[in-house]
């Protein structure tokens, strides 16, 4: 019913609450409503306590927005925190407990030096096992990439094609953190991070917030003349530790969540016209393409290199620039994906507008696949 976003980037003068409030106020304005109309508030945030030393974040943000008295709840599911917040907000509205719910995702990451950010993010892994052995999130996805290359012949060029495509899209997004077109040669020659992944395979460290207002479809006219409907939404879970998964080249949580969301929406992968996928690392987009059924198992790389997922392709993915170029304030990402889809579905995406935009899918991943939320949106 309403959306609101801050730009993503490094904003030294901004604190977590001011980012969340900016997104929330924009969202309420966009939904032609005010704080007194909100029945419940959900905040998606991964690591505010570690990044900025503040706990009890939901009422800390909601009261600053002027929302008083209603339930205010923080949801933490690593990088899927705000996707999960949206899922829980949706279940509250669908069950009739609430009518109008505001969901904000926020993360303030750049106040910490990179090694400390890496350490905080590693808290989304199995700290007693893989992390203790020296794994970082980049290295966990690097191990996924290695195995995917081994089993399916995925190449360095396939990974680079994801980065090049998402940078090209992000260059057209005024709210993106890195508006820079890159070549496939540049993307293959980045500084090594965890082999075979280099700097251009990794998403950014970002500050930012995004907000969405949801309400029963029957009340849409009160808020907007361009409503977008949640046709399907599902959340699924899996092991936190990568070494517990029988097959690391697929994310069962993505398969489960998408199967449920497709069933709920009454559509299949071939029907989806555009998607925002969780490209925390280039290999993650390739695996998601396969797990969502856009391409057969092992074919996500060639599918990308052939241009299917480009803005001009038949299955545009991450027209916002994705986490790679738009930025990845981890707790904000799930809701930001929804905002970016809504912009496309309302024909408000400017230079990056795609022609077919009535059925969109967002896939938000937590950790190395322990949480996944898939949302399917349609124009009414």
């Amino acid at each position: 019913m309403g959306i609101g976003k801050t730009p993503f980037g490094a904003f030294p003068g901004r604190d977590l609450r001011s980012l969340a409030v900016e997104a929330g106020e924009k969202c309420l304005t966009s939904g032609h409503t005010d704080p007194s109309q909100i029945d419940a508030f959900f905040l998606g945030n991964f690591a505010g306590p570690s990044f900025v030393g503040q706990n009890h974040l939901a009422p800390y943000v909601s009261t600053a927005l002027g929302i008083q008295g209603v339930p205010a709840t923080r949801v933490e599911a690593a990088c899927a925190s705000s996707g999960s917040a949206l899922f829980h907000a949706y279940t509250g509205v669908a069950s009739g407990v609430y009518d109008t719910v505001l969901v904000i995702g926020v993360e303030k990451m750049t106040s910490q030096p990179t090694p400390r950010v890496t350490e905080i993010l590693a808290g989304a892994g199995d700290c007693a096992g893989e992390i203790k052995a020296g794994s970082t999130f980049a290295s966990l996805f690097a191990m996924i990439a290695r195995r995917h290359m081994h089993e399916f012949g995925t190449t360095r060029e396939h990974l680079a094609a994801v980065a090049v495509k998402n940078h090209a899209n992000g260059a057209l997004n005024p709210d993106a953190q890195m508006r820079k077109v890159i070549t496939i040669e540049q993307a293959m020659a980045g500084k090594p991070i965890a082999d075979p992944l280099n700097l251009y395979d990794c998403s950014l460290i970002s500050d930012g917030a995004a907000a969405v207002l949801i309400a029963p479809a029957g009340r849409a006219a009160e808020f907007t003349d361009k409503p977008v409907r949640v046709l399907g939404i599902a959340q699924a879970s899996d092991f936190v530790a990568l070494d517990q998964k029988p097959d690391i080249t697929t994310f069962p949580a993505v398969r489960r969540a998408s199967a449920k969301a497709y069933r709920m929406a009454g559509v299949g992968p071939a029907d989806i016209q555009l998607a925002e996928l969780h490209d925390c690392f280039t290999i993650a987009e390739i695996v998601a393409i396969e797990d969502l059924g856009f391409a057969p198992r092992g074919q996500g790389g060639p599918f990308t290199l052939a241009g299917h997922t480009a803005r001009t392709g038949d299955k545009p993915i991450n027209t916002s620039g994705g986490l790679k170029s738009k930025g990845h304030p981890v707790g904000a990402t799930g809701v930001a994906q929804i905002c970016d889809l809504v912009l496309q579905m309302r024909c408000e995406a400017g230079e990056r507008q795609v022609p077919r935009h009535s059925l969109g899918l967002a896939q938000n991943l937590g950790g190395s696949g322990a949480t996944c939320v898939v949302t399917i949106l349609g124009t009414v």
Partner: protein
Amino acid sequence: MSDATGTIYTETVVHSATEAFAPDVPYQTAIVALDSGGRVTGRISGERVRIDDRVARVEIRDGVPFFRKIG
């Protein structure tokens, strides 16, 4: 069947680490499929390994298994 030997399921060489591991970079981590069943994430000592290489555990340091290429 031993939990001290196994086969490399996947691996990576880490170049950018947390502060605690920064002195060790570049270092190799791997998921090892143990001959006794199950998998474990550990560190690689000595020569770099690739998928399907055979390894043996050489030590356990602070709960973390270190493996070395054999054969």
